């Protein structure tokens, strides 16, 4: 699949997340505290809640509904009530744009 041009790097504050919709699927794009970018599925695996409304702390995203946490680099579920890992997608930065490899 071609890389999708998702947003500009400065569209996402450092240590923050935004929602990115593509086709009929929702994703979450992250800007880590040391300047890297990541992409995961947009909804929490516990219930259908947008992670982009949650809180980024270092490399964790905390879901706004029940405070479940994932490591957004690997998608690993890190705090109950989330038990199922999050899907992650490759990201690269090119000329100030965040590019995502989506299925």
């Amino acid at each position, binding site marked *: 699949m071609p890389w999708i041009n998702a947003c500009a790097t400065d569209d996402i504050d450092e240590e923050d997340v935004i929602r990115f919709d593509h086709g009929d699927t929702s994703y979450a794009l992250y800007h880590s505290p040391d300047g890297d970018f990541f992409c995961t599925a947009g909804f929490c695996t516990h219930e*259908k809640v947008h992670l982009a409304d949650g809180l980024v*702390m270092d490399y964790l995203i905390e879901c706004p509904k029940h405070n479940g946490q994932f490591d957004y680099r690997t998608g690993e579920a890190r705090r109950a009530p989330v038990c199922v890992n999050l899907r992650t997608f490759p990201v690269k930065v090119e000329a100030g744009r965040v590019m995502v490899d989506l299925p």
Partner: protein
Amino acid sequence: MSRSNRDYALLGRDAKLAEEIGLVSAQWYHTEIPRSEMKALMKRSDGPAIRDTIILFGVMLAAVSGGIALWPSWWSLPFWAVYGVMYASAMDSRWHECGHGSAFKTRWMNDALYQVACFCMLRNPVTWRWSHTRHHTDTIVVGHDPEIIAMRPADVARLLINVFGVYELIGNGRTTLQLIAGYMPETVKTFVPESERSKAFLIARIWAVIYLSVAALAIWMGSILPFMVIGLPIFYGSWHMVMTGVMQHLGLAENVLDHRLNSRTVYINPVSRFIYWNMNYHVEHHMFPMVPYHALPKLHEVVKHDMPPAHGSIFSAYAEIIPALRKQFQNPDWFVKRSLPGTAKPYRPEFHGDLEPGQPTPGIGGYPLATAAE
């Protein structure tokens, strides 16, 4: 007087109905807050909770020392009164905040205080974490929320007896015994995933060892004093938890998707706010569970234009609750629909249907019974 038209059972008739009409795991109303402001409100820190925890344990230590020193004289009573409220009411709010993981920034601190609070409250850390998760997903949705403390019509005797933590202790004692024996009821299994169950059994068994040690000490001393320190405070110190807990949702709407209709914010005195860890800002907490307790007063200022006015005191909240509970004896569909200020977004039917007090509540299967004569 009418009988209840509601089926509160977790696997019951109204549980299915609520699901059918889309009340379960649904989208809830949220007041709009700019992301930058929200991020500042959600920000975690250790400072406030470390300070409050030092105060809490300091007060508990001083009170229990006084109680033991003066035991069995009546002069020990005020010390036990203070110790009991800290043990069985302040620990309820610590269980709550640390269960959300938002009290401290540092994870192990949250987890450690959570375990201590669960032990004091005799609430299994696993089953109670998951039941509270459900309470946030399906707040006051009949047949889904396991934390509805008063059904309609209310069992008043039960509410009054529980001022002494009786049902809290009986319910949690029974669950603990079941878990020690390796048994988890089907209703509990509806909200505790398979992968978590073994932890629930393990913790119940660790507690069994602690309680047996306390019992052995009590027998050796020929005194109930060890139980005054561990266990019995649930009887003599729960009243504050019950007093504040009743204010959270009682008399308000069921089966709605807007926390402004089913939760209550009340201004209370600073001592009670310390004990209750700011959960008097209850609409705010339910709408934004990511905001830590210490930021709730600030959140309240940000959203109050979109909320029903907060009650000015505990007395004012009860002046609303008691008549509403009385009316629900005549009609269980009765509830208090609080009016919103002109600055608020109106209640929207897509979040709760055209729900009006006394009219059939969506998702309740038995409403024709509500007004039928017994």
